[in-house]
């Protein structure tokens, strides 16, 4: 087992317990690995690498929304790789690309390289958020952008605390779907 796997798994376990700093560090490192992974895949498929950043963000959102499916008894790398590959194939299918050319790869590949040259994706999250229902918009803005606590957000949005949490989750899910639709070329 590589030291990277050990380090990232420890961050993931802390994240599942709600440690925001660990989670930030985890997503930061994963997004750099994913960037290198997707750029390499796109290059191998003869596509431009400009779409890679969209896919990095899709994968990061998927990792966030599906983090409860990580089994702590298993290593982290294959789990991340399965999500990354699933999103790659989903992306290519959406864009009617041939799937025959996608090579079978090893789980380690997703962690193989580090690319920190963060770029902008092609969509604007603020604009997409405008298309969410009011309750979801308010909950995400208050808690995720303005950093209010759940209790404060509940007061601001006029929702119960559990409804704020539900709205954040549903809102991020809807955002992920909107992004997927947006990045269909």
């Amino acid at each position, binding site marked *: 087992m590589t030291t990277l796997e050990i380090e990232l798994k420890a961050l993931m376990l802390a994240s599942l317990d709600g440690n925001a700093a660990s989670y930030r560090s985890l997503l930061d490192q994963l997004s750099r690995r994913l960037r290198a992974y997707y750029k390499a895949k796109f290059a191998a498929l003869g596509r431009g690498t400009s779409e890679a950043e969209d896919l990095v963000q899709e994968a990061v959102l998927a990792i966030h929304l599906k983090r409860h499916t990580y089994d702590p008894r298993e290593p982290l790398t294959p789990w991340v790789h399965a*999500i990354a*590959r699933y999103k790659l194939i989903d992306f290519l299918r959406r864009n009617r690309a041939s799937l025959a050319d996608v090579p079978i790869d090893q789980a380690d590949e997703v962690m193989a390289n580090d690319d920190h040259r*963060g770029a902008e994706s092609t969509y604007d999250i603020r604009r997409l958020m405008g298309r969410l229902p009011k309750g979801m918009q308010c909950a995400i803005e208050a808690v995720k952008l303005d950093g209010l606590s759940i209790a404060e957000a509940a007061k601001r949005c006029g929702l119960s605390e559990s409804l704020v949490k539900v709205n954040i989750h549903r809102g991020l899910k809807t955002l992920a779907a909107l992004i997927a639709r947006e990045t269909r070329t």
Partner: protein
Amino acid sequence: MKTDDLVALLSTNLEPVDRNAVVRTLCVAIATGAILALGIAFVGLGFRPDLTTPGALIFLAVKVAFAIGVVGLSLAYLTRLARPGGERKISPLLVALPFLVVVVLAAISLGSAPRAHWERMIVGDEWLECLLSIPVIAIVPFAVSIWAVRKAAPTNLSRAGAFAGLIAGGVSAMAYALHCTDDSMPFIAVWYGGTIVLCTLAGAALGPRLLRW
């Protein structure tokens, strides 16, 4: 948007997650599906009138044991298949075990019976009812299992769909067993086994469409 901003957004006010969510959701879904299937079988078909006689109870126990074997094994697989990459570590052949046992028992019971009885043992009285009822009753537990798998993140959609179908078929067979009065091993092997396989194939075909995330 910058990826850094997305990372910052997602990690702000992070909520802890329940590590047992996948398993618990699936178990709750299967239990709900089983209760609904029993209700549908009772209201739609009624339970067999001789339910408490020893002869009926033995075959009821065999049918239910077969169905529970199928459901238990496929549930164990589905808890893995519902997770990203879960399909890599398993070879789902073990799930054929209950079918194998039933087929062997059917062969033994055919072997020890005169040839003239074979047709009656295999076809029974209500083969058509069985053929239709198990897939129809399976629809509701199938919908509930698909809902549960959608909450997780399968990466092999046809296989996850197949196992959702297999569970639904097993749950449905268990409910139908309370109504069915055809008591012979060959009947169980052909019509119970066959319809459960049918549900599995339907699940495999529907999986890619129903389970995308």
